């Protein structure tokens, strides 16, 4: 499997205005990442209408650093306006725009953050843009993330049943009960039926112990399951501890990437 870093990990320094995307990309290359995940709403200058030149510059910078963009992330918000929710047509139009951004960046996977309930809303939404995903060669990677359990995603994946709709498990799904944001701990066995749909993973981390392990997340077991399965996709570190405490982003990025290499190579 390929290993890398989500630029989300660098949130402390992005939020404080200390770095830009190009600084973060150089750091990722320096610590040995095979690739990165980029989030439009956090990292791309000129968002939500970035210039073609900017997108090309990002793509070419990543390539020149010997990396690839594993995944382009974005947010599919429904409550953007104060007077009304986004219409179905507006949601579809935005999804198509994001698919084209992913394509220009050279990312094969797009992970939209989108919280739909019931799951049929998600299924209908994905089906409405399947032809566009196929046309641009971009996979909608739905993120397995709280508050929904694995069964929610299995239902959607089986219903859509397309190679252009696949899964991005976030390791927080299997974190222990003391992890921030955790509602319920899922058994590791719930990962098994999801493996065949998995194209990319978020190695979630909130903290590290003195051995560089994430105390609430079973990295060894999860990465072991991926290796045993013969997973050929990508796993990126996604450090979220920056929301609570500041540390120079390169520090947790290095620790987390070492953890991924320790159990994932």
């Amino acid at each position: 499997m390929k290993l890398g870093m989500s630029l989300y990990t660098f949130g402390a320094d992005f939020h404080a205005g200390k770095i830009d995307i190009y600084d973060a990309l150089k750091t990722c290359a320096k610590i040995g990442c095979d690739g990165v995940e980029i989030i439009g709403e956090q990292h791309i200058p000129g968002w939500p209408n970035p210039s073609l030149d900017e997108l090309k510059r990002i793509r070419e910078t990543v390539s020149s650093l010997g990396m690839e963009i594993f995944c382009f992330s974005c947010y599919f918000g429904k409550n953007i306006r104060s007077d009304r929710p986004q219409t179905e047509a507006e949601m579809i139009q935005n999804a198509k725009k994001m698919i084209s951004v992913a394509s220009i960046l050279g990312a094969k996977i797009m992970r939209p953050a989108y919280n739909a309930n019931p799951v049929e809303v998600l299924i209908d939404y994905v089906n409405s843009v399947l032809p566009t995903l196929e046309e641009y060669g971009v996979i909608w990677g739905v993120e397995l993330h709280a508050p929904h359990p694995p069964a929610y995603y299995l239902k959607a994946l089986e219903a859509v049943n397309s190679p252009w709709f696949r899964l991005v498990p976030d390791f927080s799904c299997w974190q222990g009960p003391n992890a921030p944001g955790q509602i319920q701990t899922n058994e590791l066995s719930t990962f098994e039926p999801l493996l065949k749909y998995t194209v990319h993973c978020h190695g979630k981390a909130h903290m590290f112990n003195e051995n560089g392990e994430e105390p609430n997340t079973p990295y060894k077991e999860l990465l072991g399951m991926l290796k045993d399965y013969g997973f050929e996709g990508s796993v990126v570190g996604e450090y979220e501890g920056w929301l609570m405490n500041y540390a120079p982003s390169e520090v947790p990025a290095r620790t987390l990437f070492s953890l991924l290499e320790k159990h994932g190579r």
Partner: protein
Amino acid sequence: MQQEAPRVNKNQEDRGKQGIVVFSRVAQRDLFANGLIEKAEGGWRILVRNPWYTGTYLSTVTFIRVTINGHSIAEKDTYISLRGQLIPSAYAKNLHELWWGMGEVAELFLADSALSEALAPKNEVKVDIDMRTAFSYGFPNDTLPYRLSGELEARL
């Protein structure tokens, strides 16, 4: 602002409460861009960073209130300026076309003639920002109530 997050979440409501505490931490850390209340033409200004953990549409800002040394600035006297566009804070919620980038510095312009008398060399400043989330994070009314504060130096 210093309240402890629930250690273990039992449901989505608990998760929402924890989220407010967690998201408020980074907002508090980075809000004040230069630690100053500066004299400007027709009023005073404070430079603030977008508190949310990503960029967001300005329309998600549904309420802003600035209080300095206990003196609350009226909504009609409170403006937000992004990239040189000065907007009455009450209108911000209508402007879904304007993007407030992650960590981007905006100017809070305070056109309150009584503020000068309330200012001291160092000032206790509270900034309340209600920010709607673009989809549900489990916060009540899908709104994150930032209640942030700091000590700012007045500069004439």
